[in-house]
């Protein structure tokens, strides 16, 4: 597999990055990204990033959590170890609501966090953009655009020219080690 190459350019303000990312998207690039210290509203639309499908993952987890909780309470209280407690039926489902609810939430939470990490392909401790000399400021006060060599339109010279044209600074071509 060819080494992953990335062109990275730096920008100063949220307004610049939104405009620049929009220009890159309009130029037809697909494998590009913006790196910002905080989520910028409107940037995802400018980049034409589709909405997150995370909700479906969470829903499946929550549904499983609730069904599983209700099932094991039924099986343990009514099938495997039936005991009459307080004269109530073996399957006294009203009393099983709190635990069913708690496990629905618990599984949903696991689904949310691990689903988010899965969709983002994290953890990933090594990425060529991290090698940009100024990239440390992407978590402080600077904004970056990266275009990856996997993009069909990627061309070291022409892509660099585009980044320069839209106002990118400190443009660097980085390679995965």
């Amino acid at each position: 597999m060819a080494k992953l190459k990335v062109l990275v350019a730096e920008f100063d303000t949220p307004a610049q990055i939104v405009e620049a990312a929009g220009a890159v998207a309009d130029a037809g690039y697909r494998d590009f990204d913006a790196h910002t210290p905080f989520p910028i509203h409107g940037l995802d639309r400018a980049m034409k990033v589709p909405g997150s499908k995370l909700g479906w993952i969470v829903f499946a987890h929550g549904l499983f959590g609730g069904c599983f909780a209700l099932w094991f309470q039924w099986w343990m209280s009514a099938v495997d170890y039936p005991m009459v407690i307080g004269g109530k039926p073996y399957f006294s489902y009203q009393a099983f609501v709190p635990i069913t609810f708690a496990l629905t939430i618990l599984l949903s939470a696991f689904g949310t966090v691990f689903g988010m990490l899965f969709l983002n392909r994290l953890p990933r401790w090594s990425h060529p953009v991290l090698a940009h000399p100024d990239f440390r400021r992407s978590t402080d006060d600077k904004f970056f655009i990266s275009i990856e060599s996997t993009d069909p339109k990627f061309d070291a010279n022409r892509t660099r020219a585009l980044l320069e044209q839209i106002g990118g600074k400190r443009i660097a071509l980085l390679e995965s080690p």
Partner: protein
Amino acid sequence: MSTPNTIPEALLPTSVYEEEQLVHGGLNFHDVTEVVARPTEEKTPIAWYVAFALALGVLGIFGASILYLIWEGTGIWGLQQPVGWGWAIVNFVFWVGIGHAGTLISAILFLFRQKWRTSINRFAEAMTIFAVACALTFPGIHVGRIWFAYWMFPLPNQMGMWPNFRSPLLWDVFAVGTYGTVSILFWYVGLIPDLATLRDRAKTKARALIYGILSLGWRGSMRHWVHYEKAYLILAGISTPLVLSVHTIVSFDFAVSVVPGWHTTIFPPYFVAGAIFSGFAMVVTLMVVARQVFGFKDLVTLNHLEKMNKIILLTGTLVGYAYGMEFFIAWYSGNEYEAFAFVNRAFGPYAWAYWIMISCNVISPQFFWFKKMRRSIPVMFALSIFVNIGMWFERFVITMTLHRDFLPSSWGYYMPSIWDILTFIGSFGLFFTLFLLFLRFLPAIAIAEVKGVMPEADPHHGHGHHGEVRHAEHVEAH
């Protein structure tokens, strides 16, 4: 939406104008990073070591009391009949209650788009997690023979037995366990971008490595932020019913038992209001100190503290209403045992505790009706401590209702032993040890979130009047 907003700022109501001013002192993005990250990077101050040593000492008392309890059994506490639930349950509910503010601030205020929460949510969430850790200790050791603590979980065992799922005490295990886990997940998700900030600022290899691993290789990618923000929204959405359910289920410990003074339907909402009340009071107590020591005054402004004090006033008054309504229903029900339980609370042997509770919880927050009081640091610090004392006594009063049951021949008076007291004091050692570690090594304010609510974060900031299309787009994106 069709025309850009052209109302001059001077004509806007202050509440609208204030929203733009969440960060004071003219800080820019980099300043925010500096202010929050610096305390974790500077040489550890001597005062921190002193405080940490003190906290560790108190934690040692906690450990020793628990070891002695395990060795000797729950007889070392003042437990007897009819008060079979002593300080352990009081302390448990006290700590769980405190642990409610964090998730309330991170989840419910998030859903209500209360942007001011960003300055305090990290801090309050940390407090939540540590308070829940303290809370979970008490039922864990209260079982007496703690080597059987695993009976609380539905684990397959050689006896072929399963727990009783009709018991509120078992619901508690699941509710508080879920709450603790979800709080940690929520907290950690919020921390990821800020851990990356610390990683990128690291001056030493060790820091770069540790924060690097913990931040999971976060690179601020917008494609990641889309999933991240969705995850944050969903976590807020599922935590909101959770935070309300946890103290509801804690209140079931009392309300589901057929005991006069406990068997009431007002308990769940009343416990939830009390939990938020005590949690906010604890946040104010700690925040007043922390913003002073760490220089967070531009990020946690008097406006933030005033808003918290308003919530304290609201929830304190709700709790006062619940106290009144309990009395009314005790009389209105016509049940003589119920009536006796309440008259005995207010005028019986524990009247002193009852009136401490009323003074601290109902009377003291009323000072917050006055703007001067709400914005005075010494006043809010003192009142928040009163509230915490009052909320401990609330649980004490509820638990001690047992001391005069149906048979006068078995009436008693609960006297705590020295071990009751040391275990309770010791739990503060656990809380403050964890808290000091948090303040030393993690960003105490959510850096990325604070930046996100600054006016400079808006792509249209400083551009004056944009075209209609972009404005509409912006509104929709929100």
